[in-house]
């Protein structure tokens, strides 16, 4: 009975009261993809996205506002905290597999489909009958020279220019967020504020540099989303990564604002840690990107 009594106390699980945010979220998601359908089918203009975007923004503000409020009231015990941690961890795992699909496409193209189009391995007839002129070297926009400049040519972005600077920025941001985390745990709020701010500033600078790189690629290099398989993999991988950096930087900003309001204790700071994990995740994805998309 004593063990029962002991477990009784720590296991007063927090079962949250009913919430309107899930249904608002579902409807907003429906409106958002509905806007996409209307636009892509040519049934309406890009403004069709507006209701969905407003709904999603309301969702994020509202749901997080409620949960942060409940957390500040101390309604979440350690078990709930653990559930949040695990949830975030597995969410990041699912994100990794989303990127894996695109990396899979990149490796498949580089190792299999492009050489096959050039008649290598088991596909000699592609060379003999279909694409006599095509030499399968990477980077490529395929035997049809799809996209690029008017003559089908295009240039790529060298790894050791802006991408290397971006790598340094993200690696530095990984260091600053770790310093901020140590400061939070040691109770040094001043250092925490400075280094957390430094982290999201580095993140936004990264996004800005990616923007200038895209501009350069589109206007001068002939490297576009439609530039064959190189353009497809390049922009989808770096684009989804850039989107994740943007989301991560916004998360960091929100956490920083919460720090400024005095949230988080040295022991309990789930939102900070979840954001830090997310940030390390986009960091690692970038390193893989840098090696396989830009460098080799």
């Amino acid at each position, binding site marked *: 009975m004593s063990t029962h009594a002991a477990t009784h106390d720590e296991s007063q699980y927090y079962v949250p009261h*009913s919430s309107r945010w899930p249904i608002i979220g*579902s409807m907003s998601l*429906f409106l958002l993809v509905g806007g996409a359908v209307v636009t892509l089918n040519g049934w309406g203009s890009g403004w069709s996205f507006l209701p969905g975007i407003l709904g999603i923004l309301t969702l994020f503000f509202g749901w997080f506002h409620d949960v942060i409020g409940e957390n500040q009231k101390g309604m979440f015990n350690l078990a709930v905290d653990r559930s949040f941690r695990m949830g975030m961890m597995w969410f990041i795992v699912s994100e990794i597999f*989303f990127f894996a699909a695109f990396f899979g*496409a990149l490796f498949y193209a580089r190792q*299999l489909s492009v050489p096959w*189009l050039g008649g290598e391995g088991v596909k000699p007839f592609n060379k003999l009958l279909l694409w006599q002129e095509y030499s399968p070297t990477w980077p490529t926009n395929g035997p049809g020279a799809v996209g690029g400049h008017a003559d089908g040519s295009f240039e790529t972005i060298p790894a050791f220019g802006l991408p290397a600077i971006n790598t340094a920025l993200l690696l530095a941001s990984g260091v600053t967020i770790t310093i901020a985390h140590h400061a939070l745990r040691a109770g040094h709020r001043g250092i925490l504020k400075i280094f957390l701010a430094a982290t999201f500033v580095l993140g936004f600078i990264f996004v800005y540099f990616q923007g200038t790189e895209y501009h350069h690629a589109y206007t001068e290099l002939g490297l576009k989303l439609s530039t064959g398989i190189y353009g*497809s993999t390049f922009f989808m991988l770096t684009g989804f990564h850039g989107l994740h950096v943007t989301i991560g930087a916004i998360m960091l900003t929100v956490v920083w604002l919460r720090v400024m309001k005095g949230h988080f204790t040295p022991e309990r700071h789930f939102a900070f840690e979840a954001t830090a994990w997310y940030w390390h995740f986009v960091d690692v994805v970038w390193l893989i990107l840098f090696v396989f998309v830009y460098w080799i």
Partner: protein
Amino acid sequence: MAHSEHADHAEHDHHGPAHGFIQRWVMATNHKDIGTMYLVFAGLMFLIGGAMALVIRAELWTPGLQFVDPQFFNSMTTMHALVMIFGGMMPAWTGLANWMIPMQVGAPDMALPRLNNFSFWILPFAFLMLLATLFVPGGAPAGGWTIYPPLVVQGGANFPMSMFAIHMMGISSILGAINVIVTIMNMRAPGMTLLRMPMFTWTWLITAYLLILVMPVLAGAVTMVITDHYFGTTFFSAAGGGDPVLYQHIFWFFGHPEVYILILPAFGVVSEIIPTFSRKPLFGYESMVYASASIGFLSFIVWAHHMFTVGMPLAGQMFFMLTTMMIAVPTGVKVFNWSTTMWKGSLTFEPPMLFAIAFLFLFTIGGFSGLMLAITPADFQYHDSYFVVAHFHYVLVPGALFAIIAAVYYWLPKWSGHMYNQTLAKWHFWLSAVFVNVLFFPQHFLGLAGMPRRIPDYATQFADWNAVSSIGAFGFGFAQLLFVWLIISCVRGGEKASDHVWEDTHGLEWELSSPAPYHSWTTPPSDAVILRGTTGH
């Protein structure tokens, strides 16, 4: 000890369901309410998907075109699959997970109740969008549920609708799977160690890992198809250096684990039911756990057996043939364990047991035809024939669907507090078991004789067995109305069910009252209760 447990529950149970439809259902956070919504939704989708199947079988009743035009026929095969897989099977399993996992691990609810509600409510909107394609210009998607480019890229207005509907279903599944994993890993009562967990919880844990790893990959494939269609990428176009076969690889990297997502919880259910009605502990509990995990792992390295005829290097064909056959080993462990559990048991044949035994035999037939398909050179003959249709329907209908029905018959008295009409349920079983074989067994013959799948018309030599199959389809379909009626009347009333419901039940869910209290375990069950409840330990 046990009495004090129940007393504790009574104390905490004064906060029951919220009043008002919107408060209780739309803004739900209770795992039982959300589980019920999942199950009702799945039931509705089974009926819609079943109606589509009957359109297909009506058209195939005799050679020639009689009821629908070929385009609509292709829409029916495509939509039938999408509705049944994403709308029927997966939500049915998630509904069962919602109901049973907190009860089985000794928790009051799922770990993340609001996320749970979000996962559910995405689904009705996703299927609103998918089913709406039936009414847009050009009709519903007709390129097959595998949405292969380049065919699918030629779709009309339905294309973005079905693609984004699939994205929404994927989000729902990922969030649901996260919830299951967190519930099992974090909400188990003290003393409920991993190797004391019931098999249904175990198989769902492995299923949830599969979901988290493969649903994002499907999202990636769908995204690439969308950008190929609208934004000029060339992932699946050879002119730009891509390859349509790449799509098949990515899709089946999702698609094959998806098959196990549909069947692993069925293994769990059967592993719960057979010991109960054999009055013996499950034979080889730990080997069942390891076999499930092995199947989960192997499911990631067999995907290209769906595409043997697409032109892969010989090494690839060999590799995927051998890994596929390897799956027969852990599956065999399971089949033998179930048989051995029944060996010298005191068997009785209540409705759940009947469906579980039918599962054991008929799923095994589906497994054997799967082995035949795994043999690469033989698959060159079977590929895209009705033999394949017969194979996966044997695995999914008398396999996964029978397990879902068995689970409902097994746990419905615990949920509703009433026993259903068992005689009528046995009628439901015999009608289902006979007609499902009339429906699908002849399709093996049709496939081996050369009838291709996904065609609205066929050569006259296939007429007889198609007619037989159609008779089976209508018999099976209408027999399920009996099931609907049985569930509704059981929920509304009937003979009171005892707490243990069946004679020899093990597991924490049976330690709760019938109907189960609104918040399952508000205080963790004691070690003694857990030990009493744990199967065979």
